[in-house]
């Protein structure tokens, strides 16, 4: 009887040992079969992301923007004149998009709509001094500068401004010109009229360039005056 119980105990023990060893043996095999797959998937995704970032970075590095007045358009090649320097822009039928900037909005146009003397901004990858344009924007060209008022003509609403690089600009102050003056105490901008301008005041100005101006005469888009009192207080 005792022998039977002993045998039974040994068989039970062996059974438990056997089943537990199978379980132990199986568990790692499950882990071994799923864990590497997940890791590999993650690695691939990471590598994909890294490649995408690198490509985007390289594209950004090679991406340049140039601007100028359209000198000529010959098929898919456009020449831009930027203060005497001529740059070539290549259009790619499948890649290049063109827009006309209208204030804060834009309207898509065809590259064939771009005309001579338009002011164009082209962005794309540069190779051999030719920029293959991803985007071409047709916009207005602005000149931003500052100097001292040397002359005021109250009859023609015109001022002469001498800049630090010794350029003299003749600015027409139109009714549409935004005229502001800095309050020397608060440094806030205040709207003013033409009568407030004085010779000797410092003026910061923005004008629109069309490329056809003569004698540095421009219609002012906006002016910002720093009164001479600021400098002698």
């Amino acid at each position, binding site marked *: 009887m005792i022998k039977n119980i002993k045998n039974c105990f040994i068989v039970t023990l062996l059974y438990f040992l056997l089943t537990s060893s199978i379980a132990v043996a199986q568990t790692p095999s499950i882990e071994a079969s799923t864990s590497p797959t997940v890791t590999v998937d993650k690695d691939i995704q990471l590598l994909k992301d890294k490649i995408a970032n690198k490509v985007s970075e390289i594209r950004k590095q090679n991406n*340049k923007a140039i*601007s100028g007045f359209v000198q000529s358009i010959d098929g898919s090649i456009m020449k831009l004149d930027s203060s005497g320097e001529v740059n070539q822009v290549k259009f790619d039928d499948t890649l290049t998009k063109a827009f006309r900037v209208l204030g804060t909005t*834009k309207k898509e146009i065809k590259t064939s709509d771009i005309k001579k003397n338009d002011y164009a901004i082209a962005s794309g990858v540069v190779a051999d001094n030719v920029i293959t344009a991803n985007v071409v924007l047709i*916009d207005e060209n602005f000149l931003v500068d500052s100097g001292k008022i040397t002359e005021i003509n109250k009859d023609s609403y015109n001022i002469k401004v001498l800049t630090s690089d010794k350029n003299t600009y003749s600015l027409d102050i139109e009714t549409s010109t935004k005229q502001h003056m800095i309050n020397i105490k608060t440094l806030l901008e205040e709207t003013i009229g033409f009568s407030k301008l004085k010779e000797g005041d410092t003026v910061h100005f923005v004008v629109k360039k069309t490329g056809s101006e003569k004698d540095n005469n421009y219609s002012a888009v906006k002016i910002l005056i*720093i009164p001479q009192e600021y400098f002698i207080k």
Partner: protein
Amino acid sequence: MKKETIIAIFLGLLFGGVVAVFISLKSKDIELSTNKVIAPPKENVLSPNLTGTEIQSLELSEPADNAIFDKSIIRIKGTAVKDSLIVIQSPIKDLVVKNTQGKFDLEFPLALGENSIKIVVYPKEKQFKPQEKFIKVYFIDSEL
């Protein structure tokens, strides 16, 4: 001439000479004390570190000239002389700030396309010339 008369004349001349020298010295002192020095007051005299060559020059660390952005607001960072007036102007924005720290970090909006930006620094000491920088940056919408 009597001996007494000669002595009296001699003493009179001696006294007159002493008085003349005294008056001359005294008048010089009075002249010096009443004269004003024609020179700027001490507080207005430039300290050696304010000479033209040593003034903190305008440096722009951001953005780089001809940089392309895909967002409409950027930061203009740099250094300029302390307590100067900084004027930043573009076709769409005028920004006037007092540079109290020496370093500046200012938010600035961009228009779609090309943005011509002029930065002028007017030092507090008016004898120094304004410093200028001009940059062009581009805002090309990423959707384009």
